[in-house]
């Protein structure tokens, strides 16, 4: 709630325009986004997003928690890609500690992150199509998303707030039958993407609502801090998974979809192709999954196995110490960025050498991407604002933190 009343933008003699208030309770704003619009007839003259309705002070809360207690908070930032946030946070802490992660844990993280990307893009595709008027796609997308959520439930016990990654590895060995289930899903999912595309990509109504709408040039996108498909839809070829690899991404083969058009359709195509690339990476992760431990050998940082706790005094002591006192992290600072489904998700963590982070800052991709909305919409029709909001794929929980 940055500003309750719109700043007066009407000047004498300009009384052709009116102020329209869209949201915060509006079905197409994907949460609680309020958009102030100055319109002249059907044309948007000025657009101003108003955010902060979901601000919960997560960055402040982190400063009062042990390092391992922050993991569940990171889920709640972006509820559509919890694993990506988990990953970014644990990678940052591992970098602060100088921890080496066993290959199996790294590959599991990649596998789950790509499933998360599929989950997130499916919600985006369903709701974006629904905003524009194609209601059926939503039902198909949520059918597959349900399956992904069930797989999350299998590994972590939770459908959405997974908290599955730990500093030093992952929480548990995946249960029996998990990999078979993922393989099954990877088998039929490409066909399902064809189904979505059959409904949309050649559909004349869809094309009219998306082609040439809400255009943005590459220069504008870079200057405004856009990342992810919002940036790649404007022709800038950068993907952190390929260009600054983390968590073994350099061992995977994938293409980075880029489109030159910079309109809603270009961003749509980028994301749909990313779905295909992601399912390919899931298959690669299944085929090449290394054997071995799922946690690093770092007794003071990683919780010991339950079995060891029952037989070894040392393990019991470590468990007790980690739970009650946390683990100290050497002083320093890191900025770790990962490619989330929405763009560059970054964690900046400052440690003062104690068991609680001195400062945790989340660089949210949507927060920066939202700034492009004015550029996309000003001078265009009011009805296209809905398409533009959908095309940058915002999650308000991540914007407001």
């Amino acid at each position: 709630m940055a500003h309750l009343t719109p700043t007066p933008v009407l000047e004498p003699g300009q009384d052709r325009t009116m102020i329209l208030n869209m949201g915060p309770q509006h079905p197409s704003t994907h949460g609680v986004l309020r958009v102030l619009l100055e319109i002249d007839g059907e044309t948007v003259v000025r657009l101003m997003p108003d955010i902060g309705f979901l601000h919960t002070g997560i960055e402040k809360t982190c400063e009062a928690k042990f390092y391992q207690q922050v993991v569940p908070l990171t889920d709640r930032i972006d509820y559509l890609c919890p694993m990506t946030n988990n990953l970014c946070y644990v990678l940052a802490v591992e970098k602060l500690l100088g921890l080496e992660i066993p290959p199996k844990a790294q590959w599991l993280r990649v596998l789950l992150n790509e499933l998360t990307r599929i989950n997130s893009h499916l919600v985006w595709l369903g709701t974006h199509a629904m905003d524009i008027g194609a209601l059926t796609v939503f039902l198909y997308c949520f059918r597959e998303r349900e399956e992904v959520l069930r797989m999350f439930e299998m590994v972590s016990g939770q459908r959405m707030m997974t908290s599955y990654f730990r500093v030093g590895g992952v929480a548990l060995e995946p249960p029996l039958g998990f990999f078979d289930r993922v393989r099954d899903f990877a088998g039929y999912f490409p066909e399902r993407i064809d189904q979505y595309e059959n409904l949309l990509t050649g559909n004349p109504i869809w094309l009219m609502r998306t082609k040439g709408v809400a255009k943005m040039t590459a220069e504008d996108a870079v200057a405004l801090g856009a990342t992810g498909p919002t940036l790649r839809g404007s022709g800038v070829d950068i993907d952190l998974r390929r260009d600054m690899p983390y968590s073994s991404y350099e061992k995977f083969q994938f293409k980075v979809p880029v489109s030159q058009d910079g309109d809603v359709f270009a961003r749509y195509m980028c994301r749909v192709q990313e779905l295909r690339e992601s399912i390919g990476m899931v298959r690669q992760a299944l085929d090449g999954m290394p054997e071995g431990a799922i946690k690093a050998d770092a007794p003071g940082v990683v919780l010991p196995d339950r079995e060891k706790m029952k037989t070894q005094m040392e393990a019991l002591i470590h468990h007790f110490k980690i739970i009650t006192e946390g683990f100290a992290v050497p002083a320093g600072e890191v900025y770790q960025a990962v490619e989330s489904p929405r763009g560059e998700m970054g964690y900046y963590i400052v440690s003062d050498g104690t068991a609680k982070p001195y400062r945790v800052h989340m660089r949210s991709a949507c927060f920066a991407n939202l700034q492009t909305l004015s550029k996309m919409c000003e001078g265009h029709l009011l009805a296209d604002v809905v398409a533009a909001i959908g095309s940058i794929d915002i999650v308000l929980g991540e914007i407001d933190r």
Partner: protein
Amino acid sequence: MPLAPAITDLEQLKNHPAVARLVGWNAAGVQGVKFDREEMTIYVDRGGIREACALLKDDPACPFNFLSDITCVDWYPAEPRFEVVYHLLSIPKKERVRLKVRLHSASPAVESLTSVWPGANYFEREVFDLFGIRFTGHPYLRRILMPEDWEGHPLRKDYPVEGYR
């Protein structure tokens, strides 16, 4: 993988593209450097941050053309109390660099980067909102996450976690 100690000697680091560019521009404006955990940090004089960023953005050898993030760290009660942190990314060279400006609590103000990157707008508003740092030359410096009539700046260290009651 044990941690390597941080390097803070300017002589050893002068070959890094960002350091070379900034030292070549104004050696007095570079207050210090740090290379720790594979990450480069450059401490820049408060008055020169906008110019330094514009210079790095247009560097022909390694253009840091993308502003990833702006944030702040409060070192209360130490002085200088605030560190405003800028993360730049070079899209062509895939390099990152971190710039820092130290500010005293008496006048926590620094020049805005909105004229270099319009995308700095929201980040600076957030830092203003949560830390009370003023960005001179910002077109619309108002609270962004907290309500307009909120008192205090929640991410300062002297602000209690439960808020004022």
